[in-house]
């Protein structure tokens, strides 16, 4: 006679299988090693930031608030401040963005909306290639090719718009028979033009990327309602890509603030807080570091590191702002 096992008896012995997300075997090794790599990168990259802050601290404590208000950089006389270089950094970056922003926006629009489909991929590659061109090449271009013409443009601006403070040039007469070209070269204006060539492709690439994600249905709807191409762009593409426009611009601004070698090649150093961007001589944080690191003693090096730390904080704020804007906007939706 067979006995049928009763379910009750069986159930008493069965216990639920233990589920565990913890990795075993090779997976454990993989997870642990990946974690180690991540931790080491965190230590390296975070260490740079922490080191800068640690090195900057003595300088900031010694000079206090005057570090930000003093414009001279004379370590021999114990007078150190970054007001002039910060002003120069901002003016070079603003000139760069003044040229780069409209060009980047319009070029991105051209590539995504106006260009014939045949050459579109070529243009995209060209912009990416432009972003990869070394900054020293743009420095050469700006110094040897653009600067003479930029000086003429500066003279013209001073002649006709000289009543605006930023277009004034001290100690010159714009209507003199022969103009003194040396007063108009090596200025923040010239450096800004060269830097704009560097940041334009970066900003343009981000904007184009976002524009290309515009839902085609919405574009077609605008066209079907009778919009012209420009009407379609203003009513669909630009509102959709607003986050990308702001984000790309800020990313470019972050790069423009930290640009070194083109600025060092072009400007002649001057430590003076001045809004006159056309006038010869200015200085940025990075050109200050590049120019002064060689003869610096330990305490001066600490001061340079403090200046670098301030520059890093500014670019960090700008880049973080860009990331937040791009992530918050509708443009980023559905990309992941």
């Amino acid at each position, binding site marked *: 006679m067979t006995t049928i096992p009763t379910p009750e008896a069986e159930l008493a012995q069965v216990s639920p299988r233990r589920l565990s997300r913890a990795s075993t075997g090779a997976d454990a090794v993989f997870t642990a090693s990946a974690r180690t790599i991540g931790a*080491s990168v965190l230590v390296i*990259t975070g260490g740079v930031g922490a080191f800068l802050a640690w090195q900057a601290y003595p300088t900031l404590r010694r000079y206090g608030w005057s570090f930000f208000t003093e414009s001279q950089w004379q370590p021999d006389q114990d007078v150190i401040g970054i007001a002039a270089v910060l002003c120069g950094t901002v003016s070079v970056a603003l000139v760069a963005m003044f040229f780069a922003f409209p060009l980047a926006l319009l*070029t991105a629009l051209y590539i995504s909306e106006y260009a014939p489909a045949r050459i579109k991929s070529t243009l995209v590659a060209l912009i990416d290639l432009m972003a990869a061109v070394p900054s020293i090449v743009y420095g050469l271009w700006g110094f040897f090719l653009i600067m003479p013409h930029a000086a003429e443009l500066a003279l013209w601006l001073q002649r006709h718009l000289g009543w605006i403070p930023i277009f004034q040039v001290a100690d010159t007469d714009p209507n003199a028979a022969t103009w003194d070209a040396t007063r108009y070269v090596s200025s923040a204006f010239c450096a800004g033009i060269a830097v704009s060539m560097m940041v334009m492709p970066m900003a343009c690439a981000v904007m184009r990327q976002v524009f290309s994600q515009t839902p085609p249905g919405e574009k077609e709807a605008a066209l079907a309602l009778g919009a012209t191409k*420009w009407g379609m762009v203003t009513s669909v593409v630009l509102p959709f890509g607003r986050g990308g426009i702001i984000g790309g611009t800020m990313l470019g601004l972050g790069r423009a603030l*930290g640009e070194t070698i083109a600025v060092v090649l072009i400007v002649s150093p001057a430590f003076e807080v001045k809004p006159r961007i056309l006038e010869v001589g200015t200085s940025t944080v*990075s050109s200050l570091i590049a120019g002064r690191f060689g003869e610096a003693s330990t305490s001066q090096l600490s001061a340079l590191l403090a200046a670098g730390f301030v520059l890093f904080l500014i670019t960090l704020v700008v880049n973080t702002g860009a990331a937040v804007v791009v992530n918050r906007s509708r443009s980023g939706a559905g990309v992941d």
Partner: protein
Amino acid sequence: MTVTPSTTPSTTQPPTYDVAPPPATILPSYDEDAAPVVPRLGLGKASPDERFAKVGSWVAGLGLAWVVTQRLLPLDGLPWLLIAWFVLGVAVSAVTAGMTGGRIEVKDRVAESLVTGAALLVGAAVVSTVVFVALRGWRPLLHLNFWTDDMSGVGPKDGFDTGGVVHAITGSAIELGIALLITLPLGIGTAVFMTEVGGKFARIVRTVVEAMTALPSIVAGLFVYTVFIIALGQPRSGLAAGLAISVMILPIIARASDVVLRVVPGGLREASLALGASRWRTVWHVVLPTARPGLATAVILGVARGVGETSPVLLTSGAAAFLVTNPTDGVMNSLPLFIYSNVRSGEPVAIERAFAAATALLILVLILFTLARVLARPRGNRPPLRSRLARRRPSDLESR
């Protein structure tokens, strides 16, 4: 809804109904010959009329610009002619658009001109950069010794038949090799950690890495200079320069790889895991091969950034005039540094040599970039290399 044209109004033949007839529907009549109320926009190819108006406006603009700049106003020179051409061309286009359409058409035409003009200006700037550098530096490039010799014993005024940049190219290659050796495993490993392992710690790492992409290159150089050369007392060397480049491009490569790995479809991972593969095998056999083209692009673009950046090298490597192959053995030159120091010397011959080196650097970047583009192409519909070299049709280029 379609409107059927009917020549006879439907009310002429009232239908018969058993019950009371419903109110008769009056279909609107449609006159096919009538002109449209508003002129229709052509979305397709421009008609000959429109094309003539477009081209003719710009020709008229050129003529006007010539008259204005050369005859009426004292604005000599090519730049003024081009500026006047652009402004007047836009104006004439606006007028011709206004003759056939309204304000909206005028805006459309002007916007199109502005957008195209800006794109042309950017293109001209790129072309002028490349052509200008190549034109100023082509003479030294033709001498074979430029590619095979170094600058030891060569004065800044010596002719182009002596001296070369082989030491700078070697230095750049060695420094980049060191940087790649450090950043390739660390960068891609971090990206794998951030996307495949995840967790709270990974979020912290991602935040810090993204923040560090903002680090200006000169500050990276200054960091290595302070720590490695001043604090540790090491000499300036290729190793220090390699470390500086690593610090600069590590966050860039890690972040770009992270973006690439994140767009690998989750379905592929789940399929692999559902088949019983472990997480490690999933990463190695599914995720990384899928993302390989993108990873290659991320790394190569990071390298292109590293090879051209002068400021970290300026602070850390020193400049040697002779060939150095040992990265720990004292000062070492590199291409950007060679260009920089030659330009700063102010000697015309040295400046021309700098332009030649800049051309070489551009060629190097172009090679790296082309490599990235080729690797980034999807593998599936890619014919093997040999057949691609054998016949290149224009359709291959378009299908990218």
